[in-house]
């Protein structure tokens, strides 16, 4: 397993310190590192390029303003930024009046998601190996577990909403989520270890 395209632990620590010191160049470096992933996540949730770019902008504003709130002991910078991106994208999704129409398009977009065909140059994006690992961990889940994870993460649905959407009992949804999270934690634990 290689992380040649990712920031080393030491480099990330240094980047964090420079961000806290309000060094604007560091913000540019963070953007170069994470913008494709933030935008990708926002596009995945919103299925709308313009809205996703707005979310991208909001995320970096928030990161720049709230960098002091990031607690390095609780996790590395990348998932923290991605969690902000997810929250802002889900906020935008909830605000959207065309919710159901967009949700339908999102459902259609799901069809090809399991078999990603990298665009030329995509693999050169920083963090691509991590993407492959996370994607592989998700793909390794049984379909019913992967579905509940995706509904919870990318649509921000509650357990009850997932139960209604999948027409499954609430207890079943909770169980599937719990098992899926345990499998993901096991499969991806080295990512967390790497950051420590």
């Amino acid at each position, binding site marked *: 397993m290689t992380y040649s395209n990712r920031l080393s632990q030491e480099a990330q620590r240094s980047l964090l310190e420079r961000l806290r010191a*309000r060094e*604007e160049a560091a*913000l*540019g470096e963070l*953007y*170069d590192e994470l*913008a*494709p*992933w933030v*935008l*990708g*996540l926002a*596009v*995945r*949730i919103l299925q709308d*390029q313009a809205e*996703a*770019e707005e979310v*991208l*902008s909001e995320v*970096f*504003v928030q*990161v*720049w*303003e709230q960098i002091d709130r990031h607690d390095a002991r609780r*996790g590395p910078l*990348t*998932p*923290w930024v*991605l*969690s902000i*991106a*997810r929250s802002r994208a889900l906020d935008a999704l909830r605000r959207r009046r065309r919710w159901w129409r967009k949700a339908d398009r999102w459902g259609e977009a799901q069809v090809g998601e399991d078999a*990603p065909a990298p*665009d030329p*140059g*995509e693999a050169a*994006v920083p*963090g*691509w190996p*991590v*993407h492959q*690992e*996370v*994607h592989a*961990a*998700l793909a390794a889940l049984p379909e019913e577990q992967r579905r509940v*994870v995706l509904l919870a*993460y*990318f649509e921000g649905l509650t357990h009850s909403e997932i139960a209604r959407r999948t027409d499954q009992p609430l207890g079943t949804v909770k169980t599937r989520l719990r098992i899926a*999270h345990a499998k*993901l*934690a096991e*499969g*991806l*634990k080295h*990512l*967390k270890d790497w950051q420590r």
Partner: protein
Amino acid sequence: MTDWLGMSARPETTRPELRAAVLARARGAARRERWSAGRTLAAAAVLVVVVGAWWAGDSLRRQHGRTRALEAQLAAVRDTVRFLRGPGTRVVQVPVHTPGRIGSVTLFADTATGRWYVACENLAPNEPDETYQLWFATEAGMVTAAVMPMQDSRPMWMTVEVPAGVARVTGAAMSIEPRRGSRVPTGPMVFQVKL
């Protein structure tokens, strides 16, 4: 591990011009934040000054009001003293017997100006439906001077004036009347005195 799930989405190529716009917005927002904080502090300072000025002004107004009230009281006292010591003022003190006690009514009567100062001491309180009523005794009969209901036996002072058009006042009287007073004396006389 959900922290890392965001990486499962495929990366999107960002438009080159987006980078500069996003970074400029982030830096601008931070500056606005600092500017906003500065403005908040300035607004707070202005508010403190305004509130302080209002408080000082209000205190001065209150102080001025108290001063004017004291000046008015002092003027009233001086007027009373001047009246009591006036050369045309006659003083008559009348012992008064009311139920259960002996008190007095002192009349300071300036016959020239028709202004009287009346001091009542140690009079028994009235029954709830009764009142003391002071009368001017004139050649044409009794004319009401004042209705003086007394709730307790504390001393009472008052200034009364002889109504215009009343014939020469020859004396004074006090009676116990119904609570609202009477046009002519109807109740028991407390005292009756000639000047």
